[in-house]
């Protein structure tokens, strides 16, 4: 059916997305015993977050130079175990400062 109401379209997509998110939380009510499944779910976040960061970070800023600088700062602070807001703020500040340089951007 051709879309004639943006509102209805928004509700349709919201419904699908919410069901995807909520069904596992509602249906899986106990600890999974299978070791392979448990291991799989244990590793999921690391793969997902890595995949979402690279290569998207390289195109997130106005210039690849500032993106690389932010990446370096985040890696160093992240490895040191700094708190999330600090790492995020430092990376943003790095991008802003690096892009002020005349030869960047």
């Amino acid at each position, binding site marked *: *059916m051709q*879309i004639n109401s*943006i509102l209805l*379209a*928004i509700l349709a*997509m*919201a*419904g*699908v*997305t*919410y069901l*995807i*998110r*909520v069904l*596992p*939380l*509602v249906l*899986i*009510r*106990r600890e999974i015993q299978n070791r*392979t499944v*448990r291991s*799989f*779910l*244990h*590793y*999921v*976040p*690391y*793969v*997902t*977050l*890595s*995949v*979402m960061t*690279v*290569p*998207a*970070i390289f195109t*997130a*800023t*106005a210039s690849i130079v*500032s*993106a690389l600088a*932010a*990446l370096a700062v*985040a*890696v160093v*602070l*992240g490895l040191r*175990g700094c708190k*999330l*807001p600090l790492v*995020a*703020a430092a*990376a*943003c500040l790095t*991008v*802003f400062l690096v892009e002020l340089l005349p030869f960047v*951007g």
Partner: protein
Amino acid sequence: MSKRQYFLHGMRDGMPIAIGYFAVAFALGIKAVAAGISAPESALMSLLNLTSAGEAAAIALLGAGTTYVELAFTQLVINIRYLLMSCSLSQKILPETSILHRLLMGYGVTDEIFGISVATDGALSPYYSYGAIAVAAPGWTLGTLLGAILGNVLPARIVGALGVALFAMFLAIILPPARKNRVIAGIVAVSMAASAGLTFLCERMQWTGFTEGFRIIVLTVTIALAAAILFPVKEASGEEACHAD
């Protein structure tokens, strides 16, 4: 920790997410208006959907003309990764967590809130999720609204600088465990390399159907499954004795 402390903790960790969301949503709002969606509609879309890739795809589809079925199916494909994240979170919350909490937490399963949720110590409290949602969802919604209304008033340079916040946060989540555990370090390295390689390949071969959301799910399933088979996790609690041999 008390409920209140969990909530405040979630708000604190949710702040960089809110800032990053604001920046990304701002750009999304600009696109929404260009596609013929009004500012209030775009804000409502962001409030109800809370998903960057899904909304970006929807805006493109709505701008070009589409059907309800195609729109819904696109959301299913792009957002199916949330299914995996929710499966993972179902093991992180206490089994006795009520249905109401589960229904409310489900709303906030985004890439980023999932990221900070798995990084918390011990079981995940619903109040931690609520704290993160309480700042992240307004950041996302207001960003979309302001982007739709103000358009290009805000200098691109500032918005661009904020956009990197999310990625820095992801790195801050995955690097400390990667430093302590060689398997996780390997998984992070392989995942990043595979993602960069696959993205490059898709651009080269012009596989436009291979969207970012699809790439995320394909790589997540493949790499996490391979790792689970090759390096099954030793149980940290209770069962440890069973695997001591």
